[in-house]
């Protein structure tokens, strides 16, 4: 954004005026201080949070959108977006699965998602006697007994203000980057997780999350805190395709791992990618960062990205504690006209900190896949070690893969290893498998799943299976 445009934004009066319509669930498009006040009021937030948002907004106005990513898209008109929309009420959705788009149901079935969950995902109004409701209650009790806090961030602001105040923005500062600043100013909702000292979270938070999906909006914000010696595994997203009328998504995820704590954060994302020309797809600009604050803390990011028209995302680890460990395992698939610019940053600060990066990029059709990684070793990170492996797989010859590994080592004792490969799914491989009775599509799936195995192994079991199925669906029509 040019200085001129910024000035224009700052100076302009909101074109449509600002009218509070109490009946309406959605604010009219546009962004200014009044809009932010309104968001905060509607959510019933405490004053400190409103001030925090306003501070972020001021910083955002002074920033420009990043231009260095290997992606190409028309400029976004931030004044044409509506920044608040109340969660949809029950009863607004379809009355039964019969009213849901059959194509969606077919995909659910291919993914093996149980019928009751399908209803949840499709937003079908469900009866009070619905099984999963009691399942949710059981989960809640179990978590409560363990002392785990797991609730929407908007709720945590009221129930645990001291925790939210202490940790919010402590990993991703408001002005970290353009989209993080925007998110800080207007974030809608997201999850808050707090695992007390020494507690091993009694379940995968994914399980709960899936059947308790909420409309978190386009500016999602998640905060996970693992106190000393605790453990949690969290799964974000879902293999089911998600359509959203909001084109721009700018999420922020912050993780804090104290001494000896471990956080496993897995993402399976399948945003609508747009049509074959990329029209109508989601722009997904995400800031995800974890901080290993204590010694021997461990954070690992595992992700499967198949959707979005444009993805711009670098889950990162800041390794402060001595002997702390950061991991990044990623599979990113781009097809159609999708563009992905993803990767990770590993910042080594403490002595003997270690990190592992395994990135698998798959490009088909006219997809463009870029890996961008930074390994930074600060002075004092004695004997820090990193291993990076970037593998790209090309299917067809109209797609592309690009790797941009950056290394900044300011500590002479650091040991950094980097390996990169680019391969094509070879005709030999497909022919070999077909002579063994596999259809061309199954053959391709087998080769691609083999390519992704190191990453899928890191996903929670039930999702690894779904991830394979999802990959299969994504690649349908990629050969032949």
């Amino acid at each position: 954004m040019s200085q001129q445009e910024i000035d224009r934004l700052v100076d302009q009066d909101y074109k449509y005026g600002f009218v509070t319509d109490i009946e309406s669930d959605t604010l009219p498009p546009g962004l200014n201080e009044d809009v932010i006040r309104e968001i905060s009021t509607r959510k019933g937030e405490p004053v400190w949070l409103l001030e925090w948002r306003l501070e972020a907004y001021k910083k955002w106005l002074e920033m420009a959108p990043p231009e260095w990513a290997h992606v190409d898209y028309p400029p976004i008109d931030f004044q044409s977006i509506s920044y608040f929309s109340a969660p949809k009420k029950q009863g607004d959705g379809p009355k039964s699965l019969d009213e849901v788009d059959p194509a969606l149901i077919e995909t659910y079935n291919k993914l093996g998602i149980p019928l009751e969950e399908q209803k949840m995902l499709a937003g079908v109004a469900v009866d009070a006697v619905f099984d999963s409701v009691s399942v949710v209650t059981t989960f809640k009790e179990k978590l409560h007994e363990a002392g785990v806090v797991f609730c929407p961030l908007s709720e945590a602001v009221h129930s645990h203000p001291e925790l939210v105040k202490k940790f919010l923005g402590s990993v991703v500062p408001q002005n970290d980057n353009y989209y993080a600043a925007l998110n800080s100013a207007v974030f809608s909702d997201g999850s808050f997780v707090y695992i007390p000292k020494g507690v091993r979270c009694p379940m995968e938070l994914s399980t709960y999350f899936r059947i308790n999906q909420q409309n978190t909006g386009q500016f999602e914000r998640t905060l996970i805190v693992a106190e000393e010696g605790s453990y949690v595994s969290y799964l974000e997203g879902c293999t089911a395709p998600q359509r959203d009328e909001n084109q721009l998504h700018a999420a922020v995820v912050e993780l804090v791992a104290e001494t000896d704590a471990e956080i496993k954060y897995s993402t399976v994302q399948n945003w609508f990618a747009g049509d074959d020309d990329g029209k109508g797809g989601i722009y997904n600009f995400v800031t995800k960062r974890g901080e290993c604050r204590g010694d021997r803390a461990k954070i690992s990011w595992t992700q499967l990205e198949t959707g979005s028209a444009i993805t711009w995302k670098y889950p990162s680890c800041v390794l402060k504690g001595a002997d702390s460990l950061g991991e990044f395992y990623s599979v990113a698939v781009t097809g159609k006209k999708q563009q992905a610019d993803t990767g990770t940053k590993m910042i080594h600060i403490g002595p003997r900190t270690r990190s592992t990066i395994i990135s698998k990029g798959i490009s088909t059709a006219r997809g463009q896949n870029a890996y961008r990684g930074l390994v930074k070793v600060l002075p004092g990170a004695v004997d820090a070690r990193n291993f990076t492996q970037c593998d790209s797989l090309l299917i067809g010859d109209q797609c592309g893969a690009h790797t941009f590994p950056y290394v900044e080592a300011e500590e002479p004792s650091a040991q950094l290893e980097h390996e990169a490969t680019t391969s094509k799914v070879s005709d030999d491989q497909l022919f070999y498998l077909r002579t063994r009775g596999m259809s061309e599509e199954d053959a391709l799936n087998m080769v691609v799943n083999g390519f992704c195995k190191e990453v899928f192994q890191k996903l929670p079991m039930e999702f690894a299976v779904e991830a394979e199925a999802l990959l299969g669906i994504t690649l349908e029509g990629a050969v032949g």
Partner: protein
Amino acid sequence: MLSIRNLHARVGDKPILKGIDLEVNAGEVHAIMGPNGSGKSTLSSVLAGREDYEVTDGEVIYMGQNLLDLEPEERAWAGVFMSFQYPVEIPGVKNIYLLKAAVNAIREHRGLTELKAAEFLKLVREKLKVMQMDEAFLHRNVNEGFSGGEKKRNEILQMQLLEPTLALLDETDSGLDVDALRVVGEGINRMRSPERSVLLVTHYQRLLDIVKPDFVHVLTQGEIKLSGDYRLAERLEREGYEGIEAA
């Protein structure tokens, strides 16, 4: 079972097969011999359905069907199996996973029920024993890091599991040590039956001493120049191709 008539095939502009005629009846073993580059692998690949080769003339009838109309997987379902001269590596895919998927894909098309994990394991262990292979091979990635001989054994293991009607074995004996040659040869012999035919591409007499062929053909420059019985192989061993061509 298999009638190849006047088969011509080329890669790009280069003609490789220049009119192959061959009749293979059920239960027969035919050995195909011939100098390097004469078109032996091309013949097997065309029969298995490799798309790099363009068939420009001729036809292939397999069990009453026009074989050339079928996709490679359809040929596999119909009972055609090819053992590769250079088996292909599939990184990240465990051998057992491929074997099970292959067995079940073919069973499905033969109207048989899918083998469950335990049943399959029992079957594959039996075959491993025949091939004198260690169970560890099941858990390694397909052909990745296998020695030349191990790859060939693995191919014959697959043949044992898939029970083809027509086996195309391309230089399955190359790179095998003496003991392995016997294991592989006996593995092939076990599969011989009145319903099953084998096309055996080889350069050496020694495999034919174990798997005794009904017919031997010499393929030179894309044509079958000479056919005979087992004794033709012995003659080749003594006189070489040059001697035979001169005669």
